[in-house]
């Protein structure tokens, strides 16, 4: 019997493995069950990937795609480099800041919720802060556009004027069309919308903290704040890092929140790769899908690097990877 057909049990005992074909036959029911899934994944995930070849073609809505080599990439890093790099850096900056801010706010809110003694109040508050997550971005954008309107009917500008922050000589602030204001507003809206949802995983972790740790801290005379800092927060440490690492791989997937809130006045701070690709694809009469595929391919490559980086970080921190 060759070694390749021998396996070790957990107790170190050697057992003979049956030939692969026989194992497949013995488990044929499972393989048959798996087959449709395999076909499904191949058709819906891998077959479309063949489309990346169009990054090397000039591919317009009409006519036959023409192979152009690296011309689309030359355009991306040549004539269109300013717009493309603006979108690329904006994507990273907006996504990473969003990731940090929404998680930070979720941690803070989780800590406070965890400290609440009144269960009814806690549950009610949790429900209220979860709600914005279920609103579509289109609705959120409409609401905030009304609130932040620069016209005389805008709620926020009206309040600023009422409180004397805006004087008679001052113009109303167009928050969503001002490069200085757009990012703070965008991040603020994200915090409002996603903080509640982000608390779920942290609250779940906190519910698993051993109460004896708190009792020991009580015996040591720790104050409530000290318990929060020296017991609760360290208990969350692993979860915080896990959440950050898992989300790091997705930072380039930002489209909808930006698309519904940005406009051409703030492209310099708001345009991200997805919105740039969208405009290059759909805002002109005869787009070159080859170019936008090239942009998408570049984004995927960077995303792939981020996934590998996340995996490496995950192995370092948690002892196991994410892929």
């Amino acid at each position, binding site marked *: 019997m060759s070694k390749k057909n021998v396996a070790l049990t957990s107790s170190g005992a050697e057992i003979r493995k049956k030939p692969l074909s026989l194992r497949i036959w013995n488990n044929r*029911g*499972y393989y*048959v*069950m798996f*087959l*449709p*899934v395999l*076909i*499904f994944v191949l*058709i819906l995930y891998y077959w479309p990937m063949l489309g990346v070849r169009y990054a090397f073609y000039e591919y*317009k*809505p*009409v*006519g036959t795609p023409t192979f152009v080599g690296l011309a689309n990439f030359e355009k991306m890093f040549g*004539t*269109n480099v*300013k*717009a493309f790099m603006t979108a690329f850096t904006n994507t990273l900056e907006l996504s990473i800041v969003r990731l940090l801010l929404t998680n930070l706010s979720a941690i803070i809110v989780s800590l406070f919720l965890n400290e609440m003694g009144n269960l009814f109040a806690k549950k009610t508050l949790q429900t209220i802060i979860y709600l914005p997550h279920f609103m579509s971005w289109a609705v959120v954008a409409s609401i905030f556009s009304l609130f932040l*309107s*620069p*016209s*005389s*009917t805008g709620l926020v500008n009206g309040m600023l004027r009422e409180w004397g922050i805006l004087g008679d000589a001052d*113009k*109303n602030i*167009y928050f*969503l*069309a*001002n490069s200085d204001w757009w990012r703070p507003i965008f991040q603020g809206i994200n915090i409002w919308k996603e903080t509640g949802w982000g608390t779920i995983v942290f609250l779940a972790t906190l519910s698993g903290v051993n109460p004896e740790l708190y009792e020991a801290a009580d015996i040591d005379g720790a104050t409530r704040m000290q318990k929060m800092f020296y017991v609760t927060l360290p208990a969350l440490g692993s979860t915080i890092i896990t959440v950050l690492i898992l989300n790091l791989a997705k930072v380039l997937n930002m489209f909808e929140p930006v698309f519904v809130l940005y*406009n*051409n*006045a703030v*492209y*310099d701070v708001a345009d991200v790769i997805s919105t740039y690709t969208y*405009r*290059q*694809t*759909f*805002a*002109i*009469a*005869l*787009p*070159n*899908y080859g*170019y936008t595929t090239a942009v998408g391919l570049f984004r995927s490559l960077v995303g792939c690097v981020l996934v590998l980086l996340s995996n490496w970080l995950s192995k370092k921190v948690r002892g196991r990877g994410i892929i």
Partner: protein
Amino acid sequence: MKKKALSLLLASTMVMSLAACGNNDAATTDSTSNDSASTTEKTDSSDAKTDAATDSAAADYQHSTLKMVVNGTLTATVDNGQADFEAQWEAAVSERMGYAVDLQIQQLDHSGYTDAVGRLFASQDYPDVMIMSAEQFKQYAPTGILWDMADAYANAEFQNRITLTAINENLKDKEGRLYGFAPTYGNGCVTYVKKAWLDALGINADDIKTYDDYLNMLVRFHDEDPDGNGVAGDTYGVVAAGFLGNEAPYINYLPEFWQDAYPAILEDANGVWYDGFNTQETKDALLRLQDAYNKGAIDPESLTASTKIAREKWFSNDQTGSSGVFTYWAGSWYQTLTDNLVKNEVDSELVQLAPIEEVAAIGGYLNREAPVWVIIDDGDGDNAREQEIFDMFIDTMLDGDVVQTLWTYGAEDVHWSTKAESFTTNAGTDSAKEYNYEEGKFHLKQSPNDPNSVWKKNHLDPALVVSPLTNGYVDQSELAAAGNKFFTDNCIDAPSSPTSETYTNESGTIYDAKMAVVTEVVTNNGNVDDAMQTLYVDVVGATIETILAELNAQ
């Protein structure tokens, strides 16, 4: 055993569902492919066949399903009587063609039409006929996807009735090919002013003759209290869908500010193409916009507003935050804007502002290049299918009688009627209006989805059409008629859009760069020369040079 049976059952269910999806896809692909676009009895035109046989085949060709893609210009929408329009069109055209024709209308979102058409074409989902804006048409014409209808147009049944021959003659390229057909001329925008606001501030519209007069009016609309709510400063002079439009003629929503500037690539009197954006005229216009913006004369939301938002803000029930001036489409929109003001219980009388001297100096308001209907060429080298589509769709569209009436006014007894009837709009309000018609009298009915407004038109504006109706059916409101007359008396044709490969590829990037300049100068008080250099010349200057070189080499 049970587990195995269950696993087999689940597996076969998934396989079946996948197979079903596959079959469906295959069927869809077949039915929508360009080569077989909606063709039911397509004749084989192989080389082996003789010319006579091909001619015979062409004569026998029947195109029983017509796929049409259209934007919001077909006002008989799904919730506004489209099914009746479709049924009556099919009946009339089937009778004309001698076989049953099924019309399949795919009406795409008006504001996202260019995007949607791009998506359709990318998925090889080609219609038989579709409408295109002039700029879109210019981009697609050289691609070979559009059928050259020059011969069909020359032999069209409506030829001897055409009154505006130049419209379609001008669409022909240098070789005389005609890839699109414009059933109407382009139309354009005129400036409307709320009469009540003028009266409230004691302004006479006839006194608004120069830009200074115009700006002064706008500033007063902002600084004073034209809506009479007791608060000054909560209204604006003018609202627009962007300081610079994203389709030709770009400047038509704020002509008083742009005046002699045309911020696009255009051709001079000597036939030389140049960049109209990087000119002194455009810089002056941007400074006028900046000045007016700073004075509160322009609603700041104009920077980002869509046409829908700008419109609704203007005729909103709550006039706080609204504007006194709105430059919008002429003709039937004069009536539509008035109707909306009435519906919102706002003073509805509007004044059409005669072009101020600076606008009159260039000839008046801009008449845009007309949208066109195009026929998608299946590329098989045989014109039978395309000629049949022309005959059933374009030739009938201007038949002067039944079909043209459908395109002009909509479906009989749904949008219009000749039967005796009486109805009242806005019953029970101060704006109530009674309509009484005798038997045999052609008249428009209440809109199917809004009994408080009278239907205005369907796709063709009777005042703009290149070949008028011959059946004597006329029912245009006084306002719409006045609006059309006012526009035709005060308009000039907009410059032609360019056609160049680089322009086609880079028009999106160029527009973004232009908007960056406009925003920087108008809303951020930026220096116009610096903005022009850093946000435009440095970003797309080389591209513009390439485009101009291509255009001037043609």
